């Protein structure tokens, strides 16, 4: 059994459960988009009533934010003791 080393671990973190969770998550995601066939979304600015707009907008804006944060991190990230250097006498 390739799962043998996980068998003692909590059921929630076993690979089998995680595969199931991904499956369930995918089904829910698909359903929320498909639900738009039945329920029309009232748009306030035009585009937001398009099919799947909420899904695409949510996904893409998150990708954009993560990438922007990643880039900004290249400039702004410092070691944890950055401010502590030479401040021990405070």
């Amino acid at each position: 059994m390739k799962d043998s080393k996980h068998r003692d671990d909590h059921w929630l973190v076993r690979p089998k459960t995680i595969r199931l969770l991904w499956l369930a998550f995918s089904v829910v995601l698909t359903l929320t988009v498909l639900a738009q066939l039945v329920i029309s979304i009232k748009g306030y600015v035009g585009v937001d009533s398009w099919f799947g707009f909420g899904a695409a907008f949510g996904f893409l804006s998150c990708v954009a934010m993560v990438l922007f944060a990643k880039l900004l991190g290249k400039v702004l990230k410092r070691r944890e003791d950055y401010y502590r250097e030479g401040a021990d006498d405070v």
Partner: protein
Amino acid sequence: MFDSLPPALILLAGALLIAVLRGYWRIGVVLLAPLATLLAVWQVPDGIVATLPFLDYTLQIVEGSPLRRLFATVFAGMALVGGLYAYRTARWYELSAAYAYAAGAIGVCFAGDLITLFLYWELMALFSTVVVWCGNSAAARAAGIRYAIMHLLGGIILKVGIEGVVVHTGSIDIQPMLATNFDTWMILIGILINAAAPPVSAWLADSYPESSPTGSVFLSAFTTKTAVLALILMFPGEKVLIGVGLFMVMYGIIFALLENDVRRILAYSIVNQVGFMVCAVGIGTQMALNGAAAHAFAHIIYKALLFMSAGVVIYRTGKNKCTEVGGLFRTMPVTAFCGIIGALAISGFPLTSGFTTKTMISQAAADESLVTVYMLLAAASAGVFLHAGIKFPWFVFFQRDSGLRPKDAPWNMAAAMFVLVALCLGIGAFPGLFYQFLPYPVEYTPYTASKVLFYLQLLLFSGLAFFLLLPLMRRTETISLDTDWLWRVLLNRVACSIGAFISALLAAISRVTDKVLTRSKKACAKQMNTDLDANDDEELGLFARSWPIGRTAMWIAVLLTGYVFAYYL
């Protein structure tokens, strides 16, 4: 003068009693003082209730209105639940300071004039600094000093504005105004500093995570939200606030994404959430102001819940970094459950308080045809789910197995968290009950199929983005520079280089004077032959030689002639 006791004074008396009482008596005061305050808050009728003469002015110590009661209710409630959460672990001085801090916040809620507002404003600054110091580490003491400097500076700016308005208008009343001249700009800036607006947002993420696990629960509730209340009272419809708010919203998300410290993630998300409220005040319609007030109320509850959940983790494990914790759901199911509810509420998931309050702000933007604002707020809602909704519970309670097996929350902390869980879900499930306490009549239905579906798509797909981009979000043991770099490092460097320049200049001057002195000393010594070791064969110095008497007589004659000339001139 006083129809009833001002609610703030009741809590302030409670804070004093906590300091002097011991044992069960103190616990009694911790739990009963906020309750008594809460009752007093609900007794305050509309209009000016208590006045006090001061110099030539009549201070309006207590002025009631639905908006003021709403904020005071949540502040007193937070003191109560925070007290329940903290009383077994926090030191007496932390509890006492936290209650005095809460009293300041409640005082601001009912302040009818600018002078009273300012006094309570400073009371908050004073005791919140003590709460930061109760973190009891070198880092907390340093952060507390930076925090105090920032808030005293903000207080001075506010005071300058208040003086200006009082002198130029002759009125000390708190009334709606716009930032049109120097005085009103100063007031606006003074308030915005407390709201953690740019460019000084950094004070919040700098100080709150350094406080104790219990202290951060109190800190998260009061300062920024009294600033929101002050903005609603004084600057509704001030268009500058829309831009400021949107900046705060985005800043909070981006910096929280970069952060490794658990409580610092939550601190950045305070800035993000306050951004929603500031933006709403900028929109300024009744719907927007209702949204700002409702969102402040809901935010205080779920943010305290999140800080409580993080506080339990830090209390039990002593660790506060994403890179150090993980997998804690195994032994801390209660804390994990409460943290997840707080995270869902902050993300504005349907059936939580975030959904029924935050969507009011988006609706207000849509009603005013502010397309960009509406779209940015929608993007930000997705971003909130990303940085707080999933990131916080995922990295703390799931992620990987850190091997830590801490005990779950002590009963009092669990009880406090469950009270807040109930409120988060209650406001989410029964918004109608809550809406009746808002300042303006509410004609808004949060639960329409269209709205729920739109937000579900938005949030669930941002969840998908989180898990797909997880490799990009691997936590690193780093901090991120913020504008506070300017005064923590640059100012320090400038001061150091100015100091070095001055000392170099002084050293150069002293070198030159030394040289001049030694040379002239040498010359004198040579001429006067005080140098006893000098060789006898050398020619004697100018003042050491013997001079013929005739030459002396001639010089005297020259001097006397000069004197006679000078006399006749």
